[in-house]
């Protein structure tokens, strides 16, 4: 509303955030957990003077750098890129609240990159103690990055008292901060194990002693990680705002995902324990790929759930999913959504000057007097700016399908009070006239009632 709305047909632009974030998280968590693993294991290998294991760890560090410093770093920037495009008001708010959190994270990024490169490129040239210290510098910096970014994502789900006391630290130490930090630390450790295990399996190490050592040692962080994911996940659930818990309970898809995440985490735990930990000889590419896929499923599901339960907000209680501040709604219902929006107001003024009064304000009554096709055009404008954040016309969460067979009266009733029908939808932030215009448009896109249904009804 305050910003132009980026129209991406079929998938909606916010789904691009989900796509980038999902692929990023798979590598970003490894960047943290893998760093911890490498620091601890390099120390162990130096202490035991295990040259073959050091050789393996060096190989793994190269793989780690190629994946995390390039793919992880760029997709991380990519999330930031995408949220600014698809969710500009929320990004604006987050940057105003957390600018120094991000700036601090940047400092740790710089340290991460330097320590990772020096750790790898001077592998054999640094004294063992210094080499190990570099590994720990990386691990600690990476974990602090995780903590800093987690405070922001946790804030988005439950800002706690920030609305009453808008200070950085109240935002930072929000109710979801500790549980999400525990869960994500666990996820990072879990993924580290799976990446190491996968890498080792695909490398087809011939030395059986080394294979057994890698298998055994690589499972330890994963076992701890699975426990932390379970503790953090449970706590996360308890710290959810009431509506988020209600959303979890109400949406059957989320019920299934919730069950899935805990089940898959348990399966991964069992596979790690019974597989590489107790039976290191099982280190085969097939088993490793299966384990890795389960791990990604657990992490990906967790991240999806975290995003899904926030509805109807982008930042809980602060910015609604359709880029409006909740406190703006009463005013918009009086003056009109089109009038209140920078770009919608401009659009109407440019395309329908007859609906703008002498003071330059949109005359809602005049909008209703437009020709039918023009009313539909204004309705489409309302749809794109008010609804397209979550609904496409054809494609993801398509209104054409969800309103299949609806009568204009049914559509109007929903448009006027969407939050009554589905509590995780934001309220309609427009006037009664705008509700009619939006209905005009939706009627044109809603598909007809499916033919062939025998339900005892006459139509």
């Amino acid at each position, binding site marked *: 509303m*305050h*910003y*132009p*709305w*980026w*129209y*991406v047909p079929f998938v909606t632009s916010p789904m691009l955030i989900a796509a980038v974030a999902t692929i990023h998280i798979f590598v970003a968590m490894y960047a943290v957990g893998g760093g911890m693993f490498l620091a601890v294991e390099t120390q162990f290998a130096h202490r035991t003077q295990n040259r073959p294991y050091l050789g393996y760890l060096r190989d793994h560090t190269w793989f780690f750098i*190629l994946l995390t410093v*390039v793919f992880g*770093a*760029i*997709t991380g*920037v990519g999330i930031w*890129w*995408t949220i*600014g*495009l698809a969710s*500009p008001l929320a*990004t*604006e*708010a987050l*940057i*105003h*609240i957390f*600018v*120094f959190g*991000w*700036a*601090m994270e*940047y*400092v*740790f*990024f*710089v*340290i991460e990159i*330097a320590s990772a490169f*020096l750790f790898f490129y*001077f592998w*054999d*040239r*640094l*004294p063992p103690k*210094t080499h190990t210290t*570099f590994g720990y*510098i990386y691990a600690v910096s990476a974990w602090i990055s995780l903590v800093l970014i987690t405070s922001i994502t946790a804030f988005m789900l439950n800002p706690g008292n920030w609305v009453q006391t*808008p200070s*950085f*630290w109240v935002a930072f130490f929000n109710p979801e901060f500790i549980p999400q930090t525990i869960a994500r630390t666990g996820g990072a450790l879990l993924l580290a194990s799976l990446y190491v295990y996968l890498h080792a399996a695909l490398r087809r190490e011939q030395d059986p002693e080394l294979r057994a050592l890698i298998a055994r040692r690589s499972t330890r962080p994963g076992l701890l990680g699975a426990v932390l994911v379970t503790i953090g996940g449970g706590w996360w659930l308890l710290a959810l705002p009431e509506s988020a818990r209600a959303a979890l309970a109400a949406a059957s898809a989320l019920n299934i995902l919730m069950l899935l995440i805990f089940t898959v985490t348990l399966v991964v735990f069992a596979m790690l324990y019974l597989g590489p930990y107790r039976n290191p000889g099982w280190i085969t590419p097939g088993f490793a790929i299966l384990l890795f896929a389960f791990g990604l499923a657990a992490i990906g599901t967790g991240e999806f759930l975290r995003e899904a339960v926030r509805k109807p907000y982008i930042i809980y209680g602060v910015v609604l999913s359709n880029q409006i501040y909740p406190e703006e709604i009463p005013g918009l219902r009086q003056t009109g959504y089109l009038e209140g929006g920078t*770009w*919608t*107001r*401009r*659009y109407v*003024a*440019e395309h329908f000057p007859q609906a703008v009064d002498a003071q*330059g304000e949109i005359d809602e009554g005049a909008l209703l007097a437009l020709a039918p096709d023009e009313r539909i*055009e204004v309705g489409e*404008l309302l749809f*794109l*700016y008010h609804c397209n954040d979550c609904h496409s016309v054809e494609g993801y969460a398509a209104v054409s399908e969800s309103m299949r067979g609806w009568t204009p009266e049914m559509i109007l009733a929903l448009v006027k009070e969407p939050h009554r029908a589905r509590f995780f939808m934001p309220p309609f932030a427009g006037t009664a006239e705008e509700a009619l215009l939006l209905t005009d448009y939706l009627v044109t896109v809603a598909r007809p009632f499916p033919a062939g249904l025998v339900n005892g009804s006459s139509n």
Partner: protein
Amino acid sequence: MLPPFLGPLNPLGYPAPYWFILFFKVFGFTLHITLMNLWFAGLITMLLLRWRGGPHAQRLSDRVINAMPFVIAYGINLGIVPLLFTQVAYYQVFYPATILAAWPWFAVVPLLMVAYYGIYLYVIGLRKGTMNTQKRAAGWVSAAIFMLLGLVFSNSFSLMTNVAGWGPLWNATSQTGAPYGIGLNLGDPTLAPRLLMMFGLALTTTAAYVVVDTAFFAGGESAEYKRWATRCALMVSTLGNAWVAVMGSWYFFAALPAEIRAAQLQVPMLVLTLLTAAGTGLPWLLMLLAQRGITRRLGLLTGLAQLGALGLHAISRQTVQNLELARYLPIGAEPVNIQWSPLVLFLVLFVGGIGLLVWMVVQVVKAVRHPVTP
């Protein structure tokens, strides 16, 4: 009269004084372009030297490209700060401009990834002696992508200050008022000269980098190589300076709006304008001096002088940006609500982080000078 495109001010206010935001934006941008220049113009220059040059040219090319993974990692990272503070200070124009050009802007992410991995492929070929046609091609593709990315950035940032150009672009590339995100700011007369001027500036940075590399890190190379590299640096710098002069004149005298040009020519801004124009002259003079024999002191001075020249460009760019935006926005007028403790903590971490980096480098230097025996 049509309503303006700019949304309301953020109710939270600036989290730091405006000057602080601006300082870190300019400081961060200076550091970012120092490294960005090396992949923007340096990479293609080095590939050309490898392709067409003799043994010394090829050696120089290998040395510079070998450092690219590190340069790119840091260059991207150092770009975070200016972008972060741009979003704090100019969110009202930054978001609409990038949304109007959303797909090119979004494409930065996959393109950068391809270019970065392409460089790794090339470097692996160099380091392992396994260079082949595919790896060589990867290097060229990466260089092309990096130049394309320069265009994307120039497009978005010139669009950010060209608010008057938004209307036609929006109408031409939107679905009932919602942009498709394919807007290109090609109608802006400043787009081409500012991009090309940056290319020339990047050539001068590449030359300065070659001098610093030769002075500090080419201990194992022959005296003849060092002489050749220093001479090559001077040639590249001369070309870069000439290029900047031509493109800078185009930008300043023919593309920049008259009122902004007039403001830049008034004292005290005139001093900054002249210093910026002459900025890359000092490193060029130092390179000329280095033709008599490269020393570490000359290398250091050349590097610092180039950094200073880039800093001047960043400051000038900021003043022009503010003048351009002042036509639409009350620059710096947002209420300030300083987040003192996180601000101080950030500064402490920033200084501490630099200290830690220095400590790590010292450890590496010590280890290289006194190798451990396994």
